[in-house]
């Protein structure tokens, strides 16, 4: 209840003067000025707010009412809904970019969600935690238990993240559904981009999270 009473007042700058998250800045940098963006699983609307402050026309989809409420308090246009069921009702080509920030692993059907993203938007931006990171592998190998990290502290039985994948897994999915990768960036645990020209296996081992800018594949684009 307390949380409800202390909703932030509408503001146009970053909330509470905090610096934007590194992965948010990276996503924002991939979005062209003046474009239309849908942020799926927009949470409290921090990324959307960052984008709107950079001249982007943003919309959000968020499953929790608390998230919707905080987003609306920031002056954002956010709909309460579920990515797994509600994306089907969005028309084709409605947006320039559809963003899925740290949410892919929480969807029931990641592949269907990704396909919808590239139907609704001309481009998609996906960021997710990399389950192939060496710390994850080490925990599973040494402790024999599902890995838990500072960033992903939930136990296997109460986590919302039901579809973890590695960078390699995600690249494979993109190939399968004919999605073209325009840019890919892996971030280390400090949020710093890994070396640009490093091989995939290096990224898969040392990237804690990854951000992909995707476009429709050739056959898709011709349709």
């Amino acid at each position, binding site marked *: 209840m307390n949380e409800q009473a202390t909703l932030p007042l509408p503001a146009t700058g970053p909330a509470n003067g905090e610096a934007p998250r590194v992965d948010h800045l990276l996503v924002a940098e991939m979005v062209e000025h003046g474009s239309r963006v849908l942020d799926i699983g927009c949470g409290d609307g921090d990324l959307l707010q960052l984008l709107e402050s950079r001249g982007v026309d943003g919309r959000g989809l968020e499953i929790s009412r608390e998230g919707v409420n905080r987003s*609306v308090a920031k002056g954002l246009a956010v709909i309460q809904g579920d990515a797994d069921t509600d994306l089907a009702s*969005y028309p084709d080509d409605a947006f320039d970019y559809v963003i899925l920030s740290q949410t892919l692993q929480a969807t029931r059907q990641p592949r269907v969600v990704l396909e919808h993203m590239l139907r609704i938007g001309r481009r998609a931006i996906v960021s997710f935690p990399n389950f192939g990171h060496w710390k994850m592998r080490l925990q599973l190998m040494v402790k024999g238990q599902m890995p838990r990290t500072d960033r992903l502290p939930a136990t296997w039985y109460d986590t919302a993240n039901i579809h973890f994948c590695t960078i390699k897994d995600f690249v494979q999915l993109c190939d399968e559904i004919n999605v073209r990768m325009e840019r890919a960036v892996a971030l280390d645990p400090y949020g710093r981009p890994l070396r640009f020209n490093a091989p995939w296996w290096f990224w898969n081992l040392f990237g804690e999270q990854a951000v992909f800018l995707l476009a429709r594949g050739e056959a898709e684009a011709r349709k």
Partner: protein
Amino acid sequence: MSELAGITSGDGGREREVDHPSSLVATFGPDEPLRLDCGVDLAPFQIAYQAYGSLNSERSNAVLVCHALTGDQHVANIHPVTGKPGWWETMIGPGRPIDTERYFVICANVIGGCMGSSGPASTNPSTGQPWGLDFPVVTIPDMVRAQAMLLDRLGIDTLLCVAGGSMGGMQVLQWAVAYPERVFAALPVATGPRHSAQNIAFDEVGRQAVMADPDWRGGRYFAEGTHPRRGLAVARMAAHITYLSDAALHRKFGRRMQDRELPTFSFDADFQVESYLRHQGSSFVERFDANSYLYLTRAMDYFDIAADHGTLAKAFLGTRTRFCVVSFTSDWLFPTPESQAVVRALNAGGARVSFAEIETDRGHDAFLLDVPEFLDIARAFIDSAAVARCLGAGHTTS
């Protein structure tokens, strides 16, 4: 804001309000007819309204509130007939989400109503008698057209926000469809883009109850000094159930007895819930006109935005209005899918829309009650609309 007359009760108060409301009134002469959907030009006519707060010099802080079926313009002041607080004081007033210290708030009695705007209980200027069923059938678009004429009269071009629940929400949607350039922000709550078959069915039960009362006299009860009290009370009782929910009724009353331990083996109001409904019915007839109830339920039945525009999406195409659509989980009169249909249509047109479904067991009436989650989102939406319209909220663009 006008000085409110002393509180009166009973039919005397209600009958006086019909032609001489204790609120502001705008009268429109024979040269300013209201074009009704049924083809009739209504003239002369009048609109009774309330206003709170003050209009700024740019005329950019006006908020229009639309009332529901049995509401009226007394949204945030003591009601002149019942003596009760305004019907939306949780939402409107100093420091409330629609803050009367920041915004100029207007609420008009709908055309067809019985609290001072022209309706079947009003005096027909050509006969000197109440209109009764000679009053033309009105629609939700007619109500909105009349409100637009009122705003023209007040010199208000664009509304910062139009807000309302239930039938008021229908008017909000109609405002956004009919006058998109005049609506900066729209807050339709617990409503839908059309009346469902189930809702038309409920309305018909209410109307049949009124018309089955011998005191209705074919709608000419005013001439014979009667009022179909029993019929209107039954209509209200049936409708009131649809405003609540199974869970809310159970929580409030359960199977508890009214002032007794054991059943009386009669048809007295043994149960608290019966007593409550009887009270709802009998107090309603003190403040509402039976014919007006017929007209307003009919207006809701006829409402169907998609039918008027081909599809719902087409109706909203190109709109620049920002929307916040709100529904309630336990509302079975306007369940969430009705709101979602509006949201989908707005989305299809790329409109700036927010949507939230509020978790509550209080049913359709939740929009009138102190539901903090709902009031918070309303406040956030209106404040952010004010910021977007540069109505100094203490924040500057970074």
